[in-house]
């Protein structure tokens, strides 16, 4: 089944790039791999007939968040790629063990459930219009809240990231222009 095969291809791709994003040394590579993982997820959403979400995922995760991450990496450059610096945190082994445990804990119920046989029903409604209608009716309040949240977040981010004025540190070279000696001063210099 082509759908099935392509799902596995993309699933493996997503997992591989996500692992790369978590394991690579250079943070820029991590960010790029993460972008690839997000794009792969978008394809999987598309296969699930959620095309609107798929495009939104591309637009926001690949087009915006990845770029933000890259900018953040570049703005904080130099702190992580020196060869001497340890990549992982000191307790990485414990962390990894917990992660495996978590995966195991979630995977067990999935295996034991009957989801394996569940087959998707045939889609009948084109969802984009539906989404719009739902947003404007049932989800109007959350939508407004989300708008507010985004606005606040944007302003907040801008305020946090604004460079604090460091007047005391910056010496403006323009204000440091040497004074031109006057005739008297020069004469005095020459004739002590």
């Amino acid at each position, binding site marked *: 089944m082509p759908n099935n095969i392509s799902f596995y291809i993309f699933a493996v791709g997503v997992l591989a790039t996500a692992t790369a994003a978590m394991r690579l040394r250079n943070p820029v590579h991590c960010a790029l791999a993460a972008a690839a993982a997000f794009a792969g997820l978008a394809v999987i959403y598309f296969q699930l007939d959620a095309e609107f979400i798929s495009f939104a995922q591309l637009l926001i995760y690949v087009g915006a968040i990845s770029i933000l991450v890259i900018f953040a990496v570049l703005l904080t450059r130099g702190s992580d790629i020196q060869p001497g610096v340890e990549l992982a945190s000191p307790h990485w082994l414990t962390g990894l063990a917990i992660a495996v445990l978590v995966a195991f804990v979630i995977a067990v119920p999935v295996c034991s459930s009957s989801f394996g046989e569940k087959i998707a029903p045939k889609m009948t409604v084109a969802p984009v219009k539906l989404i719009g209608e739902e947003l404007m009716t049932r989800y109007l309040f959350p939508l407004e809240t989300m708008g507010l949240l985004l606005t606040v977040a944007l302003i907040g981010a801008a305020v946090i990231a604004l460079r604090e004025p460091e007047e005391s540190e910056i*010496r403006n*070279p*323009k204000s*440091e*222009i*040497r004074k*031109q000696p006057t005739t008297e001063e020069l004469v005095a210099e020459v004739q002590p």
Partner: protein
Amino acid sequence: MTALAEPPVMHEAPPSGTIWRLAEDRSSFAGPTDDRAGGLPDHDLLEVALGPHHPSTHGVFRMDVVLDGEEVVRLKPVFGYLHRNHEKIAEKNSYLAAIPYTDRLDYICSMTNNWAYVMTVEKLTGFQPPERAEYIRVIVGELTRLFNHACLVGFLLQDMGALGTPLMYAFREREKILDLFESLSGARMMCNYMRFGGVRCDLPDGWIEEAKQVVAEFPRFLDEFEALLTGNEILLVRSQGIGVLSKELAVNAGVTGPMLRASGVGYDLRKVDKYSIYPRFNFRIPLGQHGDVFDRYMIRLLEMRESLSILKQALDTIPAGPIVDPKAKQRGLRPKAGEAYGRIEAPKGELGFYVVSDGSPNPYRFRIRPPSLINLTVLEDMCLGHTIADVVIILGSVDIVLGEVDR
């Protein structure tokens, strides 16, 4: 973008008595501090070397720029990539042999270079060029000024990223003038036309008529040029208020030519030194008020119109007669020991030659005072606080030719 609707209005003012007046505060002459031992903010500085191969440095010129973000905090010009030892070569060769080398100084305006040099040697020897030769010199000199300014505006727009259209139009007109030069002197660029006490050959038949036609058609080109450029909002916003040069600093730093006049100092050697036969012609000196890139651009456009007026007068009144002083000697010239400094108003500023003779057939000391180099003294002062994109157009507005800067 600007809300400026109509192109700048030109307006005549009555001639003022003084050329300029020194302000009381003289603190701005000294350059920006050269503080390698600190003094610059230490965060996020980016050092960029623009050149020597860079599309906008007009040849082989380098600027070591230190950027704070996009803002220039230090700029050191580096010269010498076209240092061709003009002075040394001229000191080894005869006086006559130096003339073709002067062509290659400011290789856009060979005629005015010739002129400055032969004028200096005339001062040294006392040769007196005849009237017709003086007229021819004025005509070719002003033609040179025309296409130099046109090309400069073209290059400036190229630096602003205009894909060469203005430059193409400028070169279209330049070709017409070069045709005139070629039929007169035999070469397009390196004319080697002037001689001590005159010029090398007389005008060919019909040359005056051709020149008159070129001069008559030129204003139409200028109008088109202005329609294309002067009102363009992008040009205005890119050039106004950029690279401001104050009067005081300009004078103290020896800036000359259109750049000085854009800063508001009406110092034009054609009026001040009254050399050659310029006092006979009626022309004006346009002055800027702001001293920024836009003023330098406008001053050049306005100067072209004045040059056209000189050309019209000169072409109408050129007398017949000899073209070279009969006393003058070209080959084997051995001036008496002495020295002379001659200077003319070249299109780029004051071009001076300083020749010291010790009585031998070659100059003992041969010095070129290049306007381009000395105008660059204030480059850093003009660029500080602007961005790299501005640096490029500020440099473009200075009008340098590396052959002259490095010699």
